[in-house]
């Protein structure tokens, strides 16, 4: 069996870096959310790759919980985005910069 762990790590690193760049560079709230999904993909790929390398199911089990978390995040985040849009009429992240905490 070929060892695909290195290739897995590289693909995961690429996906995560692309997601981080999009997260920082874009303004649209939905766009920012989609970038986090790309980052999630990189992380899950790493988990599955390491799980296969060690011949264990731990990686896949954690990947499943991550997918659940991502689905939960999608539901809540998009609910909030729609709520914010109804309130301010814009999806620009800058519009909410007056929130201080």
């Amino acid at each position: 069996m070929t060892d695909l762990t290195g290739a897995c790590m590289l693909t995961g690193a690429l996906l995560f870096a692309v997601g981080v760049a999009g997260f920082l560079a874009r303004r649209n709230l939905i766009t920012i959310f989609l970038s986090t999904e790309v980052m999630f993909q990189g992380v899950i790929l790493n988990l599955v790759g390491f799980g296969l390398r060690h011949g264990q199911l731990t990686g896949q089990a954690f990947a499943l919980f991550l997918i659940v978390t991502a689905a939960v995040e999608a539901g809540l985040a998009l609910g909030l985005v729609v709520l914010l849009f109804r309130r301010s009429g814009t999806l620009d992240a800058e519009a909410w910069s007056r929130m201080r905490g």
Partner: protein
Amino acid sequence: MTGSNRLSIVAAVLVWLARAGPVWARGPRGPGPADWIGIELEAVMFYLLGGLAAVCAVGCVLSSRVVRMALFLFGALGAVAGLYLLLHANFLAAIQLIVYAGGTLVVIIFGIMLSSASAAARYRARPAEKAAGAAVGLLLLAGLVTAVGRIDWSEGIAAAPSAPTVDGLGRALLTTYLVPFELSSVLLLAVMIGAAWLAGSGRK
């Protein structure tokens, strides 16, 4: 084509993927020329699908329209599902297609439609923000790639992993990972209530 017809085709493809995955990903057993070809095919497929995922991810981050971004994300999700098949994670590949591509992406499309007045509007980022994002992304990528490149991956490989199956995963979820499994169901319930409340609170 009717809706149920389409659904049955999708279901058939999913079942085929779940069954065919391990057979061709594992390759024929025992040493021999066929085994070598199987190994090479595995690596080539991995790089092809990984490249597709990367291209889709870059397109997702760079494209200016939100709907196009969602479509690119769909491509990336499909490619990563293919990678899961190559990594002997058949169940995860099916779950990825059902939950992510089927569920999360539909929720995203709904979110885009509900804020449709601004879907066409584009929010231009300042050049400085774009430069900062690209710089941080490239720096992170360079760091990760050098870190990965330094490791000798041929060391310490587990003896041919006993192909992780749905059976084993189900057992692990209901024994070793019972607490997180139950917690995630509680989390899903809480989010369902929370999302319903959020949707209702805007209407007053």
